[in-house]
């Protein structure tokens, strides 16, 4: 990792000097970057250096002013990450906002806010919401509210998002315990070393994973009405589109009628619910659309049907435990998720890797990018009406990639391949030959074929050109990343913007297109596959001469890692966009805070604006072009 951490562009991404092992205090204050100094100079009394990293805004009334300065003067135009940390010993909940410059990249800027921890299940005092400045904050703030009970004043729709309204408590607070709670950290004392073979069900009063507050009467209780999501959309509209997203605001026109006849026609508006069980929502996503005729006039998403509490479990796991869990985030791209996580931990621990490790990471990582793009394009075509024919061909190709990964790592999808400072296995010579055959022979042919049959296809073009348009500025404001952002003319790719691994050793391009519609998103993916192949080919060639076979672990192999106290935001460019891990360590064997900046989730933020004004059938296509994976959306 030495090349990476030495990059001059990103001083703040380095962990602060570690405190003594196991000690919560004294805590190192953040190093000041020039940007942070500029803010401190301008807003003197309102900010101070925060713990570990970034600036703490002590005067909340100045927060919006500071954020405006950050956006307009310092040009941090994208809100990357918003979350909170519960410092229970200090009695505060700290809200963390991280901003980045798109497309220049570099280290993110961190602004924090602290609010006192309320007692019990109370909400916190309100903090200012960033939604007016950064519309991309909406979903992230809702998640922080859902998990910590932090109230964001100014968020247009502050409801629970992953759990349901009426759920008892704020799950990520440190003093909130779930039904199967066994201990704060793993390995659990009750099970180790003696072993306790009781099932979880036998240990808890309800013999099940539930818990009810005292005085709860299941007969008298009125569940939060599911229909309120419909009610909130029922406000009458005149069929015009209120968001100016480039689709114009023209009312519905029926051919052969003039404007006054049209007004008399008074078309009805209906609300249609799609999902969570629906063949075209790519999993258990729920989408509620309001339609005027066939035109979408409003759209709301309901998420959380696959919320598996990754972050709560992650805070209890040891550092090493979490690697296989990251596979289950975006389960099409397992290895790449692991990479982001181990990158963060390696930066905090200052671990070095070997050349071989870096090459193997690039090769396996880019192979999963190919697999993911095959999947994405196949299923986008499904949504476009080419039902399963392209998908079947691409699944066949993906299976070949998966075969190789299985041979190397032992599992088809959940590879559990990365280790801190290393990887778990090297390729054998037969596997190496397999990889060469794939990278030099088979996959280039497949991609040519794909391009040949699909790119100029009339139906594909008719359905996708101009569909789901979003301008570059709006994309940035909505925190969109990945191929969708690059299809809108912004060449932002974390592999270049905040480099990691050995990507600086390869010759490859970041494909950028300018129309910002579904067709360009498709094209960007196709071109990215070619670039990935180029990277894999170079990596295979270089690895043969520049790395030693079997040298797959930098530093000592260990099962139990203590990570120095500090925090880190590590990000990688997965096939879906920027996947970030916000990690806080208090020097123990478990992460104190483990947050995933999920690109699928945040990309969904812009779904409404893309779909309003389009036909309902197009909303399905737009969703397909965003390429979400529900495991990562809901975590």
């Amino acid at each position, binding site marked *: 990792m030495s090349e990476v951490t030495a990059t001059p562009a990103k001083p703040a991404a380095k962990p602060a000097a570690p405190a003594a092992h196991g000690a919560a205090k004294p805590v190192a204050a953040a190093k000041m970057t020039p940007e942070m100094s500029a803010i401190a100079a301008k807003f003197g009394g309102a900010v101070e250096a925060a713990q570990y990293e970034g600036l703490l805004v002590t005067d909340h009334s100045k927060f919006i002013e500071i954020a405006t300065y950050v956006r307009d003067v310092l040009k941090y135009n994208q809100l990357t990450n918003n979350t909170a940390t519960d410092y229970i010993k200090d009695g505060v909940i700290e809200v963390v906002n991280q901003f980045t410059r798109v497309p220049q990249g570099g280290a993110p800027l961190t602004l924090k806010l602290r609010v006192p921890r309320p007692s019990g299940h109370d909400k916190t005092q309100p903090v200012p919401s960033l939604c007016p400045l950064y519309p991309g904050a909406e979903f992230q703030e809702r998640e922080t509210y859902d998990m910590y009970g932090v109230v964001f004043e100014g968020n247009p729709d502050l409801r629970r998002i992953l*759990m*349901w309204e*009426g*759920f*008892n408590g704020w*799950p990520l607070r440190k003093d909130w315990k*779930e*039904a*199967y*709670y066994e201990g704060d950290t793993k390995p659990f004392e009750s099970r180790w070393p003696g072993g306790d073979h009781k099932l*979880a*069900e036998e240990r808890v*009063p*309800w013999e*099940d*994973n*539930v*818990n*009810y*507050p*005292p*005085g*709860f*009467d*299941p*007969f008298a*209780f009125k*569940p*939060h009405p599911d229909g309120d999501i419909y009610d909130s959309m029922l406000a009458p509209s005149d069929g015009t589109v209120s968001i100016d997203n480039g689709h114009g605001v023209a009312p519905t026109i029926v051919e052969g009628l003039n404007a006054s006849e049209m007004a008399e026609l008074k078309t009805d508006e209906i609300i249609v619910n799609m999902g*969570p*069980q*629906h*063949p075209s929502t790519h*999993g*258990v996503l729920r989408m509620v659309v309001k339609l005027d005729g066939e035109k979408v006039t409003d759209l709301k998403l309901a998420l*959380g*049907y*696959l*919320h*598996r*509490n*990754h972050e*709560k*479990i992650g805070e*209890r796991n040891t550092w090493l435990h979490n690697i*296989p*869990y990251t596979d*289950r985030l975006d*389960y*099409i791209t397992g290895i790449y998720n692991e990479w982001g996580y181990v990158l963060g931990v390696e930066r905090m621990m200052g671990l070095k890797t070997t050349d071989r490790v870096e090459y193997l990471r690039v090769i396996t990582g880019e192979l999963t990018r190919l697999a993911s793009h095959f999947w994405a394009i196949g299923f986008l075509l499904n949504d476009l009406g080419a039902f399963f024919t392209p*998908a*079947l061909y691409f*699944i*066949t190709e993906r*299976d070949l990639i998966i075969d190789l990964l299985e041979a190397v790592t032992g599992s*088809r*999808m*959940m590879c559990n391949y990365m280790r801190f400072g290393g990887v778990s296995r090297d390729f054998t010579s037969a596997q190496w030959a397999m990889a060469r055959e794939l990278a030099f022979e088979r996959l280039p042919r497949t991609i040519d074929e794909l391009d040949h049959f699909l790119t100029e296809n009339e139906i594909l073009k008719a359905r996708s050109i101009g569909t789901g348009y979003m301008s570059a500025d709006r994309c940035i404001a909505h925190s969109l990343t990945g191929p969708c952002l690059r299809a809108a003319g912004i060449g932002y790719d974390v592999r270049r913007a905040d480099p990691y691994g050995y990507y600086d050793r390869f010759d490859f391009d970041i494909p950028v297109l300018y129309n910002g519609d579904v067709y360009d998103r498709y094209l960007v993916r196709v071109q990215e596959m070619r670039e990935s192949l180029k990277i894999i080919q170079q990596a295979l060639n270089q690895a043969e001469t520049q790395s030693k076979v079997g040298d797959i672990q930098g530093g000592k192999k260990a099962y139990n890692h203590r990570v120095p106290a500090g925090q880190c935001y590590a990000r990688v460019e997965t096939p879906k966009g920027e996947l970030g891990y916000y990690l806080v360590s208090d020097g123990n064997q478990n992460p104190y805070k483990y947050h995933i900046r999920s690109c699928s989730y945040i990309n969904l933020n812009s779904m409404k604006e893309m779909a309003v004004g389009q036909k309902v059938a197009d909303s399905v296509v737009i969703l397909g072009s965003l390429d979400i994976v*529900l*495991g990562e959306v809901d975590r």
Partner: protein
Amino acid sequence: MATQTTNIPDELKNDPRVPEDLNNNIFITTLDKIYNWGRKRSMWPLLFGLACCAIEMICTAASRHDLSRFGWELMRASPRQADLMIVSGTVTKKMIPQIVRLYNQMPEPRYVVAMGSCATSGGPFKEGYNVVSGIDKFIPVDVYIPGCPPRPEALLHSFVKLQEKIEKQSIRTVRWYTTGKTDNGMLVPYLGPDLVDLRRADEIKQKTAL
């Protein structure tokens, strides 16, 4: 035919009721056998994926593993047209009311395969506050497959097991043909302060009473 059948017995060969040219084309079997034989080779699974396991389910249905060899490839998105629910992934509390409802909407006879450790028991996410420890807490399961995710071969194996189970059922004894014993489906839980299983409502009321 996989079920046991015989050619026309000798004593029937000269029976005037059987036309001569059919002599070698008549099979005798029981109604149960022929009925189950047809049923087990034409299951229509519900097109319904929950999590990572659903990806392996799609791969099972794709070219390499080719579910249609078993006659099971026709996945229907509507529960009204499906015979089989493959619970392919983590069952969350937020999702379980919908799953139970889908199950109730499927016409009988209906079967359930719990695919993977999550659907079986909660799997790697069992301790999570939003995770149901196995789909069998709410709907009856016919076949469980271990694995995280189970390989496509394992899913195929579960189908073979389910076929074996179907073979053993008899029209005379199965519930769905007996009068007066209609199945009204399972009670749909609701989302209160936590997941409320209405079958346990009395117990909940007692235990939480102040």
